[in-house]
């Protein structure tokens, strides 16, 4: 996708006068991302979600260590960094987890309407937990799940694709048949079946399942890359010099086919988050009480479609913005890494 190439044209032309500009390499890539408005926006969103995810990870683990549980009740607790109010009940003291000052504490837990108080800017959920805090904490699950399962898919796919592409022949045939078969089962279905039969609904099985389900896609891309790289002179040179196959694959073939994979992986993180949100929505992803957007949407959709519509809105917006960040960044990266893009 050609994004903002009009600004770039001038740049490259003026640069071409004094020296030939290298159109590959990290410096060039970073420069192009900086020039590209949409890529920059994507980078900002991705950095922001990563920061929030890291913050909540550290924060929730600190509070787990200190108080024995995650503080997910009020917005006010989010504000002071790593500083937790003392009203969280110590572990074991009551399963209700009700903050003492909660306004509806006496009644059945009807979710508080959105924008109710300063303490609960987005209201609360059905158990009286602050919705905003839960959405912020939901970033953690989505982002890490996206990163980890994409990493699993990427590394698995790279190994299989590289081996298949490099050796060709029978090895290629067998590996690619398997890959094609896995590819033929719709990912969501495969992941659910996998999760249930590995040991029941859990976010970690879901992560593993998503990773495995996406191995075929990565394997196919890296294989086609390897097929073209394999014919390069430097591979022949390495072979002639007696370098072992494994080293040729790892040191020459894979690094040289990696750029398109990187772009694809970035875009794939978005897809992964999308799939995991769907899994959680169906109940096969993150399990309560872990805050997770898909699961929050599930509860809101089942119980509060009429009484509190905003509960179904906020988590969706969070999912959308996160995925959009990765997509924008991926698109920008694609433009930056593709030297032929400006026509």
């Amino acid at each position, binding site marked *: 996708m050609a994004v903002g190439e009009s600004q770039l044209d001038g740049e490259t032309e003026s640069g071409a006068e004094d020296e030939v500009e290298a159109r590959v390499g990290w410096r060039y890539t970073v420069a192009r991302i900086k020039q590209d408005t949409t890529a920059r926006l994507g980078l900002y969103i991705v950095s922001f979600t990563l920061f929030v995810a890291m913050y909540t990870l550290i924060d929730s683990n600190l509070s787990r260590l200190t108080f024995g549980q995650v503080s997910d009740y009020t917005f006010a607790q989010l504000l002071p960094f790593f500083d937790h109010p003392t009203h969280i009940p110590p572990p074991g003291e009551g399963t209700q987890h009700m903050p003492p000052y909660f306004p509806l504490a006496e009644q059945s837990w009807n979710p508080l309407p959105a924008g109710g108080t300063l303490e609960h800017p987005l209201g609360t959920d059905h158990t009286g937990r602050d919705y905003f805090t839960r959405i912020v904490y939901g970033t953690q699950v989505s982002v890490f799940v996206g990163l980890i399962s994409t990493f699993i898919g990427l590394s698995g796919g790279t190994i299989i694709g590289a081996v298949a592409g490099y050796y060709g022949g029978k090895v290629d045939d067998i590996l690619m048949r398997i890959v*094609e*078969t896995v590819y033929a*089962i719709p990912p969501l279905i495969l992941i659910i*079946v996998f999760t249930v*039969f590995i040991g029941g609904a859990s976010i970690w099985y879901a992560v593993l399942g998503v990773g495995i389900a996406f191995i075929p896609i990565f394997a196919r891309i890296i294989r086609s890359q390897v097929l073209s790289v394999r014919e390069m002179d430097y591979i022949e040179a390495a072979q002639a010099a007696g370098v072992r196959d494994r080293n040729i694959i790892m040191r020459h073939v894979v690094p040289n086919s990696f750029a398109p994979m990187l772009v694809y992986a970035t875009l794939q993180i978005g897809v992964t988050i999308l799939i995991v*949100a769907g899994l959680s929505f169906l109940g096969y992803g993150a399990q309560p009480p872990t805050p997770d957007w898909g699961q929050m949407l599930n509860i809101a959709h089942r119980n509060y479609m009429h009484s509190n519509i905003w509960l179904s809105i906020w988590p969706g917006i969070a999912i959308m913005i996160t995925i*959009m960040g990765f*997509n924008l960044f991926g698109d920008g990266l694609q433009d930056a890494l593709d030297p032929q893009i400006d026509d």
Partner: protein
Amino acid sequence: MKLLKYATYRLLQSIPVLIGISVITFLLANLGPGDPVSLMLQGQEQNEELVRAIEQRYGLNKPLHERYLTYMGGLLEGDLGQSIHYRRPVADLILERVGPTLLLVLSAYAFALVTAIPLGVVAADKRNEPSDHASRVAALIGVSTPSFWIGIVLILIFAVKLEWLPSSGLVYPWRPPSTYRSIDGHLELYYQSLRHLLLPMIALGTLQMATIMRVERTQMIESLQGEYVKLARAYGVPERTILRKHAFQVAQLPIVTIVGANLSTAIGGAVIVETVFNINGMGQLFVDAIQQNDYQLMMGVTMMLGVLFVLGVIVTDISYAYIDPRVTYGESE
């Protein structure tokens, strides 16, 4: 006929993949730590006799490869086993439920194609103008939003707030109108069917629309820079004709591929959208099978969804070969 030969060739080629799907589903269902018997008896006391009886009844005491061969033998005769939860043949259940899912997926694709192609063409034609930017933002939102959330938002707006459209269920246009109490006449039936279909169709189709639009735009831009377009321009062919005829036709081929490749996402999406809109299709059947630990049903549904995907890809391949005169039958992937 060459096309028929190619179709047969593609079908034969897909047999290993279909066998592969059956092996994977069978292994997942039978080798996982959760073995079928304990899943069936979940929550009940496990006594030795009962386990034996169940193993005997479902042939679970035989070695794995034998069980697989028995299962495959049944499969060839159209017997997918017996659903433990519904106490009915799996094949019957699937036949009952495949209609709504196909209706949903096909209408979602129809929606996606009808909206995405004109939008993509306009975006390419008015490149870097406001309408292009607007359509690209729309495409970005489309690929970044989960289908179930689009469904929820649509329900909130059109069913809960405005009360224009129903929020759940489907009216099947192939059934006689008399099956529905409040509907008389075929016209009313089609109207109601469309009303019920509208929201889930948009929910499922938006992602496809966004992907197709992106591809259409890139392809059209590329196509508009082709030599043949330059030649047509040099001959003084009006720009509208170039856009509609010369550039357009060439740009459509990758769309066919995208439609086929995205089919698996659409089938997965259908499972979730069916849950949101309470549609009794394959997706619901799958979710039921999982929730009830009905491993026979689950195997059957998983395999059928895989088969649907493979068939869909073959259909798109064949239509690709049909559209593109350059494809030599039998050699292309």
